[in-house]
């Protein structure tokens, strides 16, 4: 890839997205740059457009105005080049495929041959610690394991960019914290750039190099909080004073911008449809 370390992986300029249905302005005048190897969380109340922003970066939703470049290319071109991997809130596994074949799906799409696929799938199984489960079907796994398969699938073809849309939102607190640690260690091993959408302030602070706080109606960036906690982060990070200071900082930024919410916004009823 011809991207140097100083060029941003994602560059968003003057991005606006309105949905014709319901006349909702999901995103307005978003400018954001993500540098290689960054872990950036998007946080905000329902309806602030954070999921939409993620989908615009992935070219799954078209912007109304503004531009998005990924690895120096228009987002559409980047999608065609398979420059990013995506993980959704639900694991979105294919019931009819085994764990190994789910992980291998993007590799099949890239036309890798069987041996090469097998080798990479094995590496991925080791990475997400699911060795021994390759022949299981998704319904035989717990929610946390399913989400690990989903992460392995997104990482299998080593995309420079990983898009994650509330990947641990449906999991219990314990599983979530364990997967946070696993994700951090994977991210450090691979050095990929991550865009991470979440509802959880502590999760965002714990994982990220920067937290982008968004406010709703219309979806805007309310502020960006750089997280200066040193890596590698561990269980003890969550007990540090600096961690709490940063959590408070993010929370206050959220509160100052989000207090005029309509009830239906809080319920996510105005969350823009796809």
């Amino acid at each position, binding site marked *: 890839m011809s991207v140097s370390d100083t060029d941003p992986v994602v560059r968003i300029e003057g991005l606006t997205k309105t949905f014709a249905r319901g006349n909702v302005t999901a995103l307005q005048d978003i400018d954001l740059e993500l540098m290689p190897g960054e872990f950036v969380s998007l946080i905000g109340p329902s309806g602030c457009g954070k999921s939409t922003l993620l989908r615009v970066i*992935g070219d*799954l939703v078209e912007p109304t105005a503004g531009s998005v470049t990924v690895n120096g290319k228009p987002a559409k071109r980047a*999608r*065609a*080049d*398979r420059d*990013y*991997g*995506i993980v*959704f809130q*639900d694991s*979105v596994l*294919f*019931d*009819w495929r085994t764990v190994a074949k789910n992980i291998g*799906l*993007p590799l099949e*799409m890239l036309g890798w041959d069987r041996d090469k696929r097998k080798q990479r799938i094995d590496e991925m199984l080791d990475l997400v610690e699911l060795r021994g*489960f390759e022949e*299981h*079907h998704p*319904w*035989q*796994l*717990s*929610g*946390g*394991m399913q989400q690990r398969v989903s992460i392995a699938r997104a990482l299998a073809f080593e995309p420079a960019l990983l898009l994650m849309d509330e990947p641990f939102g449906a999991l219990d607190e314990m599983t979530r914290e364990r997967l946070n640690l696993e994700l951090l260690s994977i991210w450090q091993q691979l050095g990929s750039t991550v865009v991470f959408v979440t509802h959880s302030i502590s999760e965002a602070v714990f994982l990220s190099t920067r937290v982008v706080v968004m406010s709703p109606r219309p979806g805007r960036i309310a502020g960006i909080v750089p997280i200066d906690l040193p890596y590698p982060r561990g269980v003890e990070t969550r007990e540090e004073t600096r961690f709490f200071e940063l959590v408070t900082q993010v929370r206050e930024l959220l509160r100052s911008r989000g207090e005029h919410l309509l009830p239906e916004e809080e319920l996510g009823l105005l969350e823009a449809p*796809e």
Partner: protein
Amino acid sequence: MSGLIVTPSVGRRAARRAGDWVPAAVVFVLAIVVWEGAISAFHIQQFLLPRPSDIVSTFWTNRHTLWPAGWTTFKEALGGFAFGSLGGVLVATVVGRFRVVGNALMPIAIAANAVPIIAFAPIANAWFNPLSSTSKMAIAGVLCFLPVMVNTMRGLQSADPRQIELMRSYAASELEIWRRVRVPTALPYLFTALKVASVLAMIGAIVAEYFGGAFNALGVLIRSDAQILDFQTAWAGILVASLLGLALYGAVVLAERLVVRWTPATREA
């Protein structure tokens, strides 16, 4: 690892499956015994309801006419099942590919499904040579067509939008999304329809034969035996029809088990 549902070993699974069958087998045997006993106990006339043992022995005596007759009817049912289902799948595929066509046709298809197709049986004999098997195949085929088409169409439209979004993220073509998402999603729907169709095919073939057909066909035999008050032989014919119907149904279930290994209906079995 926590949360894992342990897959039972093959031996235990086989044992459990046998265990599932025992109650049904007991009830079946009990029903036959009660039937047999009730006829002696309440002096039920032969023409109303013969004994199971008599039906079986009549079948055995007439097996050289009944089996070939059954085979003739079975071939008609099978032909109708094959053409009807294939047609249903093809139309659903074409219609499912173009959503507008689907939206236009779906309500009509569902309404047409409510038309008692079997009422066309006497007319179908006029359309084709009444002695040929074509008219029976046509009725069986039309009966199979609609449920297969409606279900396949619904199956193709039931694909998880998030799975499609995921495929888009891989820059997948519509054809690839079709092959890797829509078709696998539709397969359980298809097999549900095929099970219904397998039963309908046999019904269609036999009822069509009631209105005339080759002399060695099951429907023709059952009707003529009933007309000459030879109810035992008619019952023996019904027995043959049931066995063949079950065989076709069983074949579809078997195929489903082999193809669809991931749905709740087949995963525990």
